[in-house]
């Protein structure tokens, strides 16, 4: 049997006296798409920040594909195939699509240490390919991200994660502040992950969106997981009742 892609054991986190995560254990199998729901302050963001390497847990362990990991920075998490897309924080609007796709991971044709000349031809060619792979059609890799709609930006962010062969994609409130049409597009992207064999964690306080795109629902409240069941065996009303 393959080991779970993510296994959290007894994670705890305090923020200056507030117990934000209380002994959280969660196991996610490869290819699952998990919806993480809960009210503000329930601990979703804390859990995600730990998994994406932004914060470090105070105690508890994280295993990726059965191996224990210790994330000290977002780079560590990315190196293990976990990539997080934030509601705003994933793209630099004043830069082109090609440059955004490769921020921090630029292919270099000549280098000294970690610094060198970017292979811009390759960046443009690969970003066109990556964007086409998520079924997004954009004018040119040189267009500024600031000129894209909110949904297109999320699409590019997802294309970026896929391009770098991420195994797990964490989407933190990707549908906030989007129009209905744009939201549907993003939900489409999330559904598409499964076909590509990726594991997805979709955080939202909009339970409808989670139900449309995930096959398992995990609900958190007051720093604990209070509900965990396949989508097929629950209903929107039940979750609403719970929260």
């Amino acid at each position, binding site marked *: 049997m393959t080991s779970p892609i993510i296994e959290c054991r007894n994670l705890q986190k305090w923020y200056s006296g507030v117990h934000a995560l209380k002994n959280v254990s969660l196991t996610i199998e490869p290819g699952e798409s998990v919806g993480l729901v809960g009210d503000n302050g329930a601990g979703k963001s804390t859990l995600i920040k730990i998994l*994406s390497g*932004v914060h470090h847990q105070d105690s508890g362990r994280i295993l990726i594909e059965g191996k224990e990991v210790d994330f000290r*920075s*977002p*780079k560590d998490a*990315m190196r293990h195939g976990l990539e*997080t897309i*934030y509601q*705003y*924080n*994933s*793209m*630099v*609007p*004043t*830069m082109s699509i090609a*440059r*955004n796709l*490769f*921020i*921090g*991971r*630029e292919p*270099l044709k000549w280098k000294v240490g*970690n*610094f*060198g*000349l*970017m292979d*811009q031809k390759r960046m443009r060619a690969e970003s066109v390919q990556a964007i086409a792979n998520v079924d997004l*059609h*954009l*004018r*040119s890799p040189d267009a500024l991200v*600031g*000129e894209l709609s909110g949904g297109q930006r999320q699409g590019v962010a997802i294309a970026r994660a896929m391009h770098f062969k991420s195994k797990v994609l964490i989407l933190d409130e990707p549908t906030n502040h989007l129009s209905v049409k744009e939201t549907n597009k993003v939900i489409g992207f999330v559904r598409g992950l499964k076909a590509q064999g990726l594991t997805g964690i979709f955080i939202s306080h909009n339970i409808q969106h989670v139900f449309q795109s995930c096959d398992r629902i995990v609900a958190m409240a007051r720093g604990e997981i209070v509900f965990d069941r396949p989508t097929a065996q629950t209903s929107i009303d039940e979750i609403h009742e719970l929260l």
Partner: protein
Amino acid sequence: MKRFLKIYLDKPELAGLALLIVLIAVFEIKSNGVLLSFENIRGVMGLLPEMALVAIGVTILMICGEFDLSVGSVFALMPMSIAVMLNAGVPFPAALLLGLAICALVGLINGYITLQFAVPSFITTLGMLFIARSLTIVISGGFPPLLPDDLPTWLFTDYIWQGAILRMSFVWFAGIALLAAALLSLTNFGNWIRATGGFNEAAASMGIPVRRVKIVCFMLCSMLAGFAGLLQVLRLGSPLPSIGEGLELQAVAAAVIGGTALAGGIGTVFGAIIGTLLIRTIDNGLVLSRVDANWFKFAIGVLTMFAVIANAWMAKMSRKIKVEAHK
């Protein structure tokens, strides 16, 4: 056609270039052909590298989302500390390296205090403006020290050859400008600078060491300002403690006129040079046209405001033009 218009609107420095050409034409006529005369260009091109290097440093730092008001003081501190070291018997190459190290340290302090204590860089570097200026006067002991005669001015400020129109400082300026432009547009570090200034949180979430990137930019900016100050002192032959006063604001004006955004993420080295050229042309052109020289700052003020408004308008127009997809 639309595509060309959009490309043009996306590049505010091109508007600056157009304005520069117009101004040169106007002043050339008003000054009865003196503006573009050999001797006048020779004079302006002696001054240009000094201010342009400061403007390039300020531009890189502004792209990265920070700000430096201390460049004018560092412009004086670096050559003064070199002069003091030379008088104490330190050989020139060692004094030059130590002088650059002092600049790097100033930049490091600017960056560290700004980031560690979350002070706006406007405030940190305003403090440094006073500190560095004060240090310059203190170490000079009130009297500008004399410079030895055997300094390698042939390497820095002499005319490239006897009777040449350009000084060696122009070669340094051109080389540094090319390197800076390459750093910004061709290297991964340039990508990080732009990302850090364009959207700090996004850059950080992609694993870019945003604090280190900013500190390096602070250091680069101070070193360029100090080196520019050295060029001026070698050209004048005497380290005055008052040089560079007001230069910090002219450098910011040059950057902004050249299309650099105060909010960060946007700007080019070419724009900084165009901005500097505009300011120098207005300065020189007003004098040659026999306009009261006190109108100079007025003109720079109007130009700065106009540039920001024009750039915002151009960006808006550019966004409206959606070039169709080509398959």
